[in-house]
């Protein structure tokens, strides 16, 4: 980062052009103000990303023989991973997890909540809104702990009692349908963020347009499909981008409940990386998995940005 130099270009529109002398004296000041931030970000965010690339090309281990003398192994880690059923399965689980929890579940429920809470006739908005927000504002460990009791295999577990009302036998949810369970947990946690984003977007839709469409005889569903939705397209794609990124990075919520089990059925990519690198101490392979994950996220990000025509 060599960005702390001050050059005499014509300044951007909204700052009054300062005299040249003055601007050159600002160099050290800028370095002083921004320098520490640049150093911290470089050292603890940018450097690890590049260091991962290096590590992914070696057979670095935490312990054992290769720990003392890591060798350069080229793309071996990548060819290993891309032909490894566990890793490919893990990517598949990450995709399923993200698709059903973030892109479908949170988006649909968040949109329903945002639309209902924007109805003028709905009473108790504050109460309903606060209820939906609760899952988001508690730490993820508390969220997992709360769900551990809901999904408990015990016949007295909350969900088992509920299904028991319909005559079903108690089930060990995290053993029988682990992936579905964590998808539902993650939907629960993310509805609020979707709701907030969509509420802000809906506020910007001119009420006259809705009114006009209603007067022309459009049903509520038609209005939403043909008037509202096209108008909030940008924010919706922006939300999809943000939620996809944060869902791919989910770790604690799932690790707390299943630790990747049973039999690796909930071993999403974040858990795969953690297991490989820090529990089996295969740093090289773990780093290669990180890089693959990173590339996928970057590609997704670019696709979304293009679809949404977001200007950053």
């Amino acid at each position, binding site marked *: *980062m060599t*960005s*702390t130099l*001050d*050059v005499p270009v014509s300044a951007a529109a909204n*700052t009054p052009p300062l005299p040249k002398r003055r601007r050159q004296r600002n160099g050290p*000041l*800028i370095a002083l*103000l*921004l320098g*520490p*931030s*640049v150093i*911290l*970000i470089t050292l*603890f*965010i940018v*450097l*690890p*990303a590049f*260091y*991962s690339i290096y590590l992914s090309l070696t057979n670095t281990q935490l312990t054992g023989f290769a720990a003392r003398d890591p060798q350069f192994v080229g793309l071996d880690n990548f060819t290993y991973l891309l032909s490894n059923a566990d890793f490919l399965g893990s990517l598949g689980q990450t995709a399923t997890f993200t698709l059903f929890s973030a892109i479908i579940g949170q988006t649909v429920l968040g949109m329903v*909540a945002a639309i209902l*809470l924007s109805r*003028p*006739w709905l*009473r*108790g908005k504050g109460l*309903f809104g*606060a*209820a*939906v927000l*609760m899952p988001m*504002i508690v*730490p*993820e*460990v*508390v969220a997992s*702990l*709360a*769900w551990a009791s809901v999904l*408990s295999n015990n016949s*007295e*577990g909350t969900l088992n009692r509920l299904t028991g009302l319909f005559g079903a036998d108690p089930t060990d949810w995290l053993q029988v349908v682990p992936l579905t369970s964590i998808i539902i947990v993650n939907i*629960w946690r993310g509805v609020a963020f979707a709701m*907030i984003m969509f509420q*802000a977007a809906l506020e910007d839709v001119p009420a006259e347009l809705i009114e006009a469409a209603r007067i022309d005889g459009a049903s509520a569903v038609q209005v939403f499909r043909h008037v509202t939705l096209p108008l909030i397209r940008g924010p919706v794609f922006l939300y999809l981008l943000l939620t996809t990124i944060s869902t791919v*990075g989910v*770790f*604690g919520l799932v690790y*707390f409940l299943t630790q990747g089990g049973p039999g690796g059925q909930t071993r999403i990519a974040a858990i795969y*990386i953690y297991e490989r*690198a820090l529990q089996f101490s295969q*740093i090289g392979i773990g*780093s290669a998995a990180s890089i693959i*994950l*990173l590339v996928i*996220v*970057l590609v997704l*990000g670019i696709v979304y940005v293009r679809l949404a025509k977001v200007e950053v």
Partner: protein
Amino acid sequence: MATAVAPTAPAPSHRKMRRRPLTPLDRVQRTLGYVLIALLAVFCLVPFAWVVFSAVDANAGPNVQWPALSFDNFVQFFTNRGTPLLLVNSLIISVTATVINLALGLAGGYALARFRFAGRRAFMFGILLIRVVPAPATIVALYLIMVNIGLSNTLIGLIIVEAAFQLPVTLWLLAGTIAAVPIELEEAAWMDGNSRLQAIWRIVLPLVGPGLGAAAMLSFMNVWGDFLTPLVLLQSTDLYPLSIGLFRAFSEYNQVDWGLLAASAIVYLVPPAVLYMFVRKHLLRSSLGGAVKG
């Protein structure tokens, strides 16, 4: 629980906004709307039942049951040997990291807002792009770096890392907030004989309160709730924050003290919940404002 029975009667209409009378279809739609939102609220709140009930239950177990009301679990949390330390560690880590993050973010945000220099736009874009990187993807390399510079398994190491993690958002937020303060105010202060830093201290700082508050809260909540980073960077039990302490306590399948666990969870969730209620309004405003500028 707060899932009040949905009143299906139409809201009393204001005199000015008199509408056509409700058609049967409207009534059905409204009823359906109340049912939906009530179901959603129940879905969101029911999982908390166990945590809330068990925390005040003298004989708490792993399942929801009507509590034998007592605050023994909380007394235990604050008097046990290990548990108060979890809270202290969490506070030390989150408060210190937030203070460092704000100090650096304020200085850096000022530079980004007030000066046009080469690489400024690239830097702003870069810190936006950093948000794309999922934390688990860099944690392994970060761990090795921390081991190499001798800061793994130390609170100071974790604090610096957490402060750095929150910097991109803080910089972005504060750059936007500071740019909204008219430069003329500062120039007037310079005329009165203040130095640049004095002007920042006396003029800018008091005016960016809401943005600063939002940044502080966001940063504190993220550090407070972080699970992965302390899990990887800390190995000593006496350095654990609440997140790791709760996880370890829960994982000891045979001898979980459910009441104590639930009480710890309540202690752990109160600070972010209270903070959120405080700055909820500022948050949306300043995060949107910060996102639009740049």
